[in-house]
């Protein structure tokens, strides 16, 4: 009973806290990027100022359905994150996450703008790229713990990374694609060097773009949360270790973002499947043999 309350608290904390944490991470990312490029950079709260500004702008939309679809995107994103942070079924969580990606595709394709539509198809390709790694992760998780429930990590004596190093590598690679970090930012980019204007967000302005940003913050906290399940175990010290690993991953991603040029989608597809196949596949085989 006590545990159930803890899981509910986890979900509520995520729903309330994730936007703020995500916003802060976004701000730190921009600041860190700027410092890496030898600039002073914007204030850490810049994403928040952007968000407030977007809510204050006049709403101009090509298709009114976009607001509804983006709302669904946001709600499903919050749902998948809340399912994860309440320690629920990992497989189900990732299925909901896939559905979320589809809604982003629809949001980009309804205005029928050439840039936005092209970026929408690229977004689908991104999904095809990261999906295998994410789904295989739940298979690996099941083999290592005997359950799909994410809360099982707290009953393990050793961290899952000991059993699933290949899955962690494949997941981190998939995460770069999912977060649209520089070598794989084919569908949209945070920087002004995207050949498709602003990619999937081209036809999103004001309130709609604010919704997209909010969903991105939720997504960011959720994806970094998934990294933590590789580290967490029954000992409380592992929580500190998980936070440190997350910070290290965060720093590496900013570095990758600043040192890589965008690849073609064909390369992204080939590379992501090769990495997933090699890392997750080999890890899966070994896991099946020793278990």
């Amino acid at each position, binding site marked *: 009973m006590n545990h159930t309350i803890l899981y509910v608290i986890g979900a509520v904390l995520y729903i309330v806290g994730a936007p703020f944490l995500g916003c802060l991470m976004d701000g730190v990312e*921009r600041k860190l990027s*700027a410092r890496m*490029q*030898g*600039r*002073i*950079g*914007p*204030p850490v709260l*810049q994403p928040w*100022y*952007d968000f*407030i*500004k977007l*809510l*204050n*702008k*006049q*709403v*101009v939309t090509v298709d009114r359905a976009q607001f509804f679809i983006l709302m669904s995107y946001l709600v499903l994103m919050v749902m998948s994150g809340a399912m994860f942070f309440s320690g629920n079924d990992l497989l189900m969580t990732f299925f909901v996450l896939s559905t979320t990606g589809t809604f982003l595709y629809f949001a980009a394709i309804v205005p029928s703008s050439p840039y936005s539509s092209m970026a929408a198809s690229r977004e689908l390709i991104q999904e095809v790229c990261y999906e295998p790694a994410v789904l295989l992760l739940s298979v690996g998780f099941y083999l290592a713990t005997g359950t799909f429930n994410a809360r099982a990590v707290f009953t393990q004596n050793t961290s899952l990374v000991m059993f699933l190093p290949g899955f962690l590598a494949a997941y981190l690679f998939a995460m770069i694609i999912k977060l649209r970090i520089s070598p794989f930012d084919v569908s949209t980019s945070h920087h*002004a060097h*995207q050949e498709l*204007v*602003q990619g999937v*967000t*081209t*036809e*999103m*302005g*004001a309130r709609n*773009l604010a919704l997209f940003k909010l969903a991105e913050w939720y997504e960011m906290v959720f994806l970094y949360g998934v990294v933590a399940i590789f580290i967490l175990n029954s000992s409380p010290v592992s929580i500190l270790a998980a936070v440190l690993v997350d910070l290290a991953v965060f720093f590496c991603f900013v570095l990758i973002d600043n040192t890589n040029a965008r690849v073609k989608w064909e390369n992204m597809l080939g590379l992501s499947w090769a990495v997933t196949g090699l890392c997750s596949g080999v890890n899966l085989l070994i896991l099946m043999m020793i278990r």
Partner: protein
Amino acid sequence: MGKVKKSPWLLHYDGSSCNGCDIEVLATLTPVYDAERFGVVNTGDPLQADILMITGGINQQNAPVVKQLYDQMPRPKVVVAVGTCACSGGVFRECYNMLGGADSTIPIDIYVPGCAARPESIMDGIMKAVELFQKRSDEHDRYEKEHKGEAGPVDPNINTARDKVRMKEMKGAADV
């Protein structure tokens, strides 16, 4: 009412110039001058932009483009003309295909002089535009509050009372 001035997103359009001002605009956004520390983002999307920055004069060919970019930007918005050509037409003013400065086509709020405009003065222009952007946003909010439920202004391109006066002036000038 929010503090919108902390997040001015910029749309840069080059009319018909020698590209000197464009290079200076890019210099403003790159590490040495780093306009991003004021929250400036160089976006290529009019739908997401707050400040339209025009370099170069307006000719027959790019006038409709400039007009459309301006129309596509959601309110509140501010327009900055950068460089002598965008302010008045510059050395190209008397050419057969030129209409003149950017104000021949759309209402301009801030004029940044120079040939080419210095990054420092471009930055100054952006800061002035940011103040105006906040003022417009407040005016816009006040208007919405006072006229809740009423039909919007007839011409969606007219932002504020000041714009209306300016449009009238431009019309008068065209008649002469």
